[in-house]
């Protein structure tokens, strides 16, 4: 009956209380109704087992121990079903989930984790699977311990007052200790957090609600507050937050994200600045530039693969003036690693070397070294033998960028060039500004009205990323919107004028013919 949840004293107390209540209720009704946990029929469990062994055991393990073949490649690690601890539930903190809870999680999956959504499973499949999963932990069969959902009301309308009140509550309830002042997951205790199995765990970046494991609606957030995420340091606030304060807190957290979807882009639009760009202004210089967010995923293609990158997106903005082009890159990082050093070069460390070097945070902007001939581009991971790439590499310990030429992942070497840089870290966000002459005769030119291919690599030092072990993006592009473009009125006017001219001609010719025919006398017409 007892399951451990040592995240807070509050929730431990709750379990004791819940245990006491259940024991009492059990004592009263236990004799009158032998209401055993619903474990389904043997046939249902067998059907569930078959499905489980085909689709689930590769990560969760055939015995539900969370040690399948793929387990070590995923963070968060696959659920250990034998533990009876489940994150997403409608039941009180520390309790088992209901059957419906388990079915919902399987059907919806957990975004940005190794747990995919299984929308194709029928209700029958889901039911069978749940019956089988419940056999892994004996508590599910315990008749005195039937999981019961707490009351989860429908969300009321969201108001600005509610959000403002929520902001205050966010601070009062120490949410920012883990989730950070602006909710970017950069709270002070973030880097020290561990789950019940002593695995490091990261506080959610609340500004990206599409990554919330339990779903992104306001009801989902409410449920997480009320039930906590068992097995993680996220406690339940059911007893510590008054009823009238719950939706304000939900609304504030909800308001931290720009939308339901990340809105990934495919290009950066750089507009012309008539005044010379002064990159010493830092981020502020780009206040009017259009942001473009690109997904960052683990580099799992070349050696030193990275299965759990610390960064999942990078935002880019760009501007240009008569001489220079400047790019601002920002990304969320739970803890700035401002000591140590880093490099894009994959350093093979000698066997038996057990030292743990400190790797700083770093980012690289990648463009082709030369204008690609034809449609071809260099290989997206640091180029190839035939088509090299330029890397503008910022080791964020250093104030200066380092330039590299990449001719493949195993062939990255320092290079010459003049790129300037500014950088800073605040409230869980790194920003870096790069600037370079648009044309220098030696490198890829940034011409007006052209698309320059661009890709990014991000190293999270806290996650010990270096060299090939990094987060990467595909090729995207920076488009320099021409400084002088004609208004769309001009082509519209030209088109209309052309039409009128043709019309006038047609009408004139037709009218002439009509009149010509009218002049022919009926007598003559009859002859024809």
């Amino acid at each position, binding site marked *: 009956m007892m399951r451990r949840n040592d995240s807070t004293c509050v929730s431990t107390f709750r379990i004791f209380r819940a245990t006491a209540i259940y024991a009492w209720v059990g004592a009263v009704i236990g004799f009158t109704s032998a209401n055993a946990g619903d474990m389904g029929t043997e046939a249902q469990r067998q059907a569930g087992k078959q499905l489980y062994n085909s*689709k689930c055991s590769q990560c969760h393990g055939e015995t539900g121990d969370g040690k399948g073949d793929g387990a070590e490649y995923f963070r968060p690690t696959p659920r250990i079903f034998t533990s009876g601890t489940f994150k997403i539930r409608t039941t009180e903190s520390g309790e088992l989930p209901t059957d419906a809870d388990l079915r919902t999680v399987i059907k919806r999956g957990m975004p940005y984790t190794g747990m995919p959504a299984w929308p194709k499973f029928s209700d029958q499949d889901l039911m069978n699977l749940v019956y089988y999963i419940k056999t892994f932990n004996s508590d599910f069969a315990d008749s005195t311990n039937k999981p019961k959902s707490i009351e989860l009301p429908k969300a009321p309308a969201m108001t600005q007052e509610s959000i403002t009140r929520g902001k205050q509550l966010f601070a009062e309830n120490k949410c920012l200790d883990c989730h950070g002042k602006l909710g970017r997951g950069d709270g002070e205790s973030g880097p020290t957090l561990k789950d019940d199995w002593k695995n490091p765990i990261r506080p959610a970046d609340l500004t990206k609600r599409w990554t919330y494991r339990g779903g992104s609606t306001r009801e989902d957030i409410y449920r997480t507050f009320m039930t906590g995420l068992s097995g993680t340091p996220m406690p339940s606030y059911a007893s510590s937050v008054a009823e009238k304060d719950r939706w304000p807190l939900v609304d504030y957290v909800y308001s931290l994200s720009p939308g339901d979807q990340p809105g990934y882009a495919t290009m950066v639009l750089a507009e012309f600045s008539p005044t010379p760009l002064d990159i010493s202004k830092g981020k502020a210089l780009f206040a009017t530039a259009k942001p473009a967010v690109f997904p960052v995923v683990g580099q*799992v293609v070349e050696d030193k693969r990275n299965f759990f990158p610390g960064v999942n997106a990078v935002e880019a903005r760009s501007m240009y003036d008569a001489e220079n082009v400047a790019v601002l890159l920002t990304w969320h990082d739970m803890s700035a690693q401002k000591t140590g050093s880093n490099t894009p070069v994959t350093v093979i460390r000698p066997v038996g070397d057990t030292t743990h070097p400190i790797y700083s945070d770093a980012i690289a902007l990648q463009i082709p070294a030369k204008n690609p001939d034809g449609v071809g*581009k260099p290989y997206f991971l640091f180029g*190839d033998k035939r088509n090299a790439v330029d890397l503008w590499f910022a080791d964020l310990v250093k104030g200066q960028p380092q330039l590299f030429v990449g001719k493949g992942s195993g062939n990255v070497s320092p290079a010459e060039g003049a790129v300037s840089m500014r950088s800073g870290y605040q409230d869980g966000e790194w920003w870096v500004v790069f600037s370079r002459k648009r044309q220098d005769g030696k490198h890829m030119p940034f011409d007006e009205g052209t*698309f320059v291919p661009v890709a990014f690599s991000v190293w999270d030092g806290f996650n010990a990323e270096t060299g090939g072990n990094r987060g990467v993006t*595909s090729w995207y592009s920076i488009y320099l919107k021409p400084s002088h473009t004609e208004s769309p009125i001009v082509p*519209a006017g030209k088109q209309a004028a052309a039409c009128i001219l043709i019309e006038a001609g047609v009408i004139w010719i037709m009218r002439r013919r009509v009149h010509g025919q009218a002049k022919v006398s009926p007598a003559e017409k009859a002859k024809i």
Partner: protein
Amino acid sequence: MNLWVCIPAVLALIGLRFLKTHILGWLAAWWICVFVILKFGMVPPMPSSIIGLYVAILTSVLLLYLTSDTERMSQAGNFLMRFFGERKFAPYLWTAAVLIPLLAGTNAYLAASKEVEAPASGRTIHPAPPGEMTFKGKKIDLIKASNPFRELETKDPTAFETHVAAGRKVYYQNCVFCHGDNMEGDGIFAYGYDPLPANFQDPTTIGMLQESYLFWRIAKGGPGLPEESTPWSSAMPAWEKFVSEDDIWNVILFLYRFTGQKPRAQEKAE
């Protein structure tokens, strides 16, 4: 194909057969119906350049139809003469004269004020494989090569199962991140890579290919693709660097087992 658009359009044309229509109305109906099918009836939508090409062909065919018969020609000619000459048609004439430049102008305005979009690059998804390849120094004839473990399926089913199980392990330690738990090309990193990883549940992927083709694609990965398949953007690793020859054949067995598909049979040499 969007049947909600195509069926009404085709029905309208069939209905036209039974009506006594003026030749110009008939031509307009044909032109509009075919255009609607091309523009709105196709899923995925056709590129506007292709639609333009078809519409040009359509227009010339309809004109040919019109001019191939004197009766049709005179019917059309008479109407045009009346339209331009008779007083009762004057309001229509002048409305058309104003509307046409207005529409053309608006169209040009919208086209010019469209946001720029990143250039899309077309690519060949299943390029022709080379005749032979080298795998860690060993020459493999891709035309004759077959999965060495396939024959165990009938000869020694127990041994076959161990190979499938080995393939399963390879898949969930290497391929799952992009190709996904259910092999639908939607692994956790899929959204960050362009082109998207292949969906093996789709019957037009591995079901249409021979096992030797899969071996080549797995062993040589993105960098081994020919130019027309944009080798510079494919995130498919050259797996010869990470897994053994046997494991590639094993994982191929598992791909077909999990998706329930059958590899395309080897063409018999004549």
